[in-house]
């Protein structure tokens, strides 16, 4: 799904009458240069349309930091960064890495909170420029490049009255999100709990540089691994073939704000009432500090609970009906604030959700759990000690789906995540320590974690808990089959 517009246009212009001034201008501009003759960069650069950056380059550090979406920049330095412009570039880069003994990781949007793609040494392949969306409306399918943002996919599909269970954060590209399983929008109704189960096939560059299709019918074991293998996948996914769904006519929603002492009652509703709603009603609980209350104020004054319900409905009337059971609960009458009868769309959803995903300094962790009351009890004890200025726990009802056989093998009735955001460098270490301590305790009530939002840096020893023991073992076995020479890095801290 290549779109090497910049270089290809430049190359085109160079072949035309206006080429000389353009080329001269570029050559004379800081940052433009011929690769160092005889260097590894020059060797690979000669073969690709993308950009090869090595440590010796003037702007290496800017490139390195640009690979991480958020502002906390992990202090790890790959030897070479390759921003590919076309699929063939990815093939060439992998072959080059294999031939020169560099281990490979892949990034796209760089949203991994642990920046697990950033390792010391080796090659980082950036696939963010592989974009493009092709929609087959009649077949309800889309072929999508890894660099496409979830918001962009939603907006593009909406033009054809289709939808896909993309991430809740609009600026997350589909690639890493899907490869890790994908806690996405309306997955309980659309995709058996996790977004990746709406992936029909993937095109993958394997360790030997081949481009292969992985699906139920072709390279089925690779397909098994790609559906959930996440950052431990031994290949570069360059194209996704997605099953799409009829778009909701409206995302009918309501949001209620409760005082912190209502937490047990809100949890009762999450545990007992929400599971009775239709599967296409998504209910999310979050706890967040009021922005204008002092950080050392009592928790009851500072924290609020937000209960957000969205029905993916064919009409407003259906939306009202789908939320009615929730809205009849006595708890709702005690809300401090409320927004009801919200006739939403993906555009509105993503716009209103933007503030929830600040491009600041942050980290997080997550668990799956079937024991939400106990999990919240643990959380409640820890929240007052949170050293980060902004700490936001989130609880999402996932349904009771049985996952298809795939690497994505862990899920619970509830997904519990905790995002910590800080402003000053000296707040980072205590925030990370606090998070690790809390989630070590939460393990007692957990069914593992979600690889995409697991604190891989803080708890690398628990990464295997993102998978069932059988899936973890099979991933290792398939790695040996598909990447016998170890061209690709394994999970963070593993290889």
């Amino acid at each position, binding site marked *: 799904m290549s779109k090497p517009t910049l270089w290809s*246009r430049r190359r085109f212009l160079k072949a035309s009458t206006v080429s000389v001034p353009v080329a001269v201008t570029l050559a004379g501009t800081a940052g433009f240069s011929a690769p160092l003759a005889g260097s590894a960069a020059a060797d690979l650069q000669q073969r690709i349309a993308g950009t090869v950056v090595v440590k010796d380059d003037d702007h290496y550090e800017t490139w390195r930091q640009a690979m991480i979406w958020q502002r906390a920049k992990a202090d790890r330095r790959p030897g070479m960064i390759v921003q590919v412009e076309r699929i063939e570039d990815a*093939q060439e880069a992998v072959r080059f890495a294999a031939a020169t003994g560099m281990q490979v990781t892949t990034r796209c949007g760089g949203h991994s909170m642990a920046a697990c793609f950033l390792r010391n040494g080796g090659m980082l392949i950036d696939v963010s420029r592989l*974009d493009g969306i092709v929609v087959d409306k009649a077949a309800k399918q889309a072929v999508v490049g890894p660099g496409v943002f979830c918001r962009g996919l939603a907006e593009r599909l909406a033009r054809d009255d289709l939808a896909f269970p993309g991430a809740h954060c609009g600026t997350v590209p589909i690639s890493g999100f899907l490869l890790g399983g994908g806690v996405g929008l309306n997955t309980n109704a659309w995709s058996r709990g996790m977004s990746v189960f709406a992936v029909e096939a993937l095109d993958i560059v394997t360790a030997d540089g081949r481009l292969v299709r992985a699906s139920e019918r072709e390279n089925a074991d690779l397909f098994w691994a790609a559906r959930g293998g996440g950052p431990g996948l031994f290949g570069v996914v360059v194209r996704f073939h997605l099953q799409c769904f009829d778009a909701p006519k409206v995302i009918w929603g309501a949001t209620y704000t409760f005082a912190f002492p209502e937490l047990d009652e809100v949890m009762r509703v999450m545990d007992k009432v929400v599971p009775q709603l239709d599967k296409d009603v998504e209910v999310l609980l979050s706890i967040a500090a009021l922005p204008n209350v002092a950080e050392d104020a009592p928790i009851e004054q500072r924290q609020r609970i937000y209960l957000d319900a969205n029905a993916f409905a064919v009409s407003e009337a259906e939306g009202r009906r789908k939320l009615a059971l929730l809205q009849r609960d006595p708890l709702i009458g005690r809300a401090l604030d409320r927004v009801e009868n919200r006739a939403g769309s993906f555009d509105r959803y993503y716009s209103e959700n933007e503030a929830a995903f600040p491009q600041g300094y942050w980290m997080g962790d997550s668990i799956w759990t079937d024991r939400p009351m106990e999990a919240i009890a643990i959380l409640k004890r820890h929240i007052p000690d949170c050293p980060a200025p902004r700490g936001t726990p989130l609880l999402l009802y996932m349904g009771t789906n049985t996952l298809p056989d795939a690497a994505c093998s862990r899920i619970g009735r509830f997904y519990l995540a905790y995002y910590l955001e800080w402003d000053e460098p000296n707040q980072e270490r205590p925030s990370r320590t606090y998070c690790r301590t809390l989630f070590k305790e939460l393990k007692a009530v957990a069914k593992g974690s979600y690889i995409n939002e697991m604190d891989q840096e803080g708890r690398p020893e628990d990464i295997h808990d993102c998978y069932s023991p059988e899936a973890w073992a099979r991933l290792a076995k398939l790695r040996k089959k598909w990447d016998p020479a170890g061209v690709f890095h394994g999970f963070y801290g593993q290889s």
Partner: protein
Amino acid sequence: MKMPSLKAGFLTILLLFSGIAAAAVGQALTAPGKTDDPARVVHQLYEAFGSGDMAALERLIAPDATWTYHGPASKLPFGGTRYGPAGVADFFAKVDETLEHPVATQFDYIVTGDRVAVPGTEESTVRATGIRYKADCVHVFKIRNGKIVSFEEFIDSGKVLLAFQGDKSVDVGRTGQASPQTLAAPPVPQPIVDRSAGKAIFTTCLGCHGNNGWGLNYVYAPNLTGQERDYLIRQLNNFRDGKRGKVDDSHGFPMVGRATAIPGADGVKAVAAYIAGLPKPAAAPVASRPVPPTISGIVPICATCHGTAGEGKTDMQVPALNRLDRHYIAQQLVNFRTGKRGYHAEDGPGALMAASAKDLPGPDVINALANYYGRD
């Protein structure tokens, strides 16, 4: 006439590379432009190739079209110039007779007036020799009244000819399933590489504004190219400093995070310089557009700052309107009118525009202005 084979051949393209064609035409795919928009017509042709839609091919190719493949017609059966839909059909019949497993990649659409240039690659196996070549090419289309009146393919026909002559030096094997040793891509002649800080930082921009900075209107992200560097710097700083991107500016607010994450003032300058240096699509032909009566009294006022063709004014750091999508212009005028932009006391130019926008009579005038100055 071997249309069924032709269809099968291009269905192969669809199956193998269906994403690439659309990736190359993100703007054309997403722009709501008129059906006779040149880029859209060309895109429709590629789509017709992809789906084997012969009726569409007939519809898109003018009766008097010329179809030229630059290469020795005496050596390459599909070389030379052909005329009209029948000639085009003959071209593809010759292609199908001699080549198999075709794969085409379109990298970009470059539109200049009624011409569309599409750089890309072509890869096919010569049936007679089994040699598989992969050649860089540029397709140049000329569009008139929604139909293709001229097509020229400039391709490395020397490589194609060698493949016909059985020269294994050009054999790239079979992409997709070939063994690694046969897959080595031909070296790309690329002596100059942009590894600038600006390009690095632009990585965080491209998901919304596109790899080429031309914008993606389905995510409400404008074309950035064609604007002056200093204007881009000012706007990025406005987002960073709270002078633009209120929470209720639903499509502007996301820029606050992105702009804030840019590493410092030098980073802002670097990415602005990178964007300002990008190739840009053709400007809206404002000068040739009639001025609707509803805005005939307003256009001269706009022109004092934005120029008579909406080209902007460097010395005033006023943006070029003729580089922006008309929907984006309309939305920004609404934002200026409703206090979502130009609201900050230290954003002098924005405040000036907000004051001007408040005097606009209403939606009809806003739409007329946007349609007059904006790109389709």
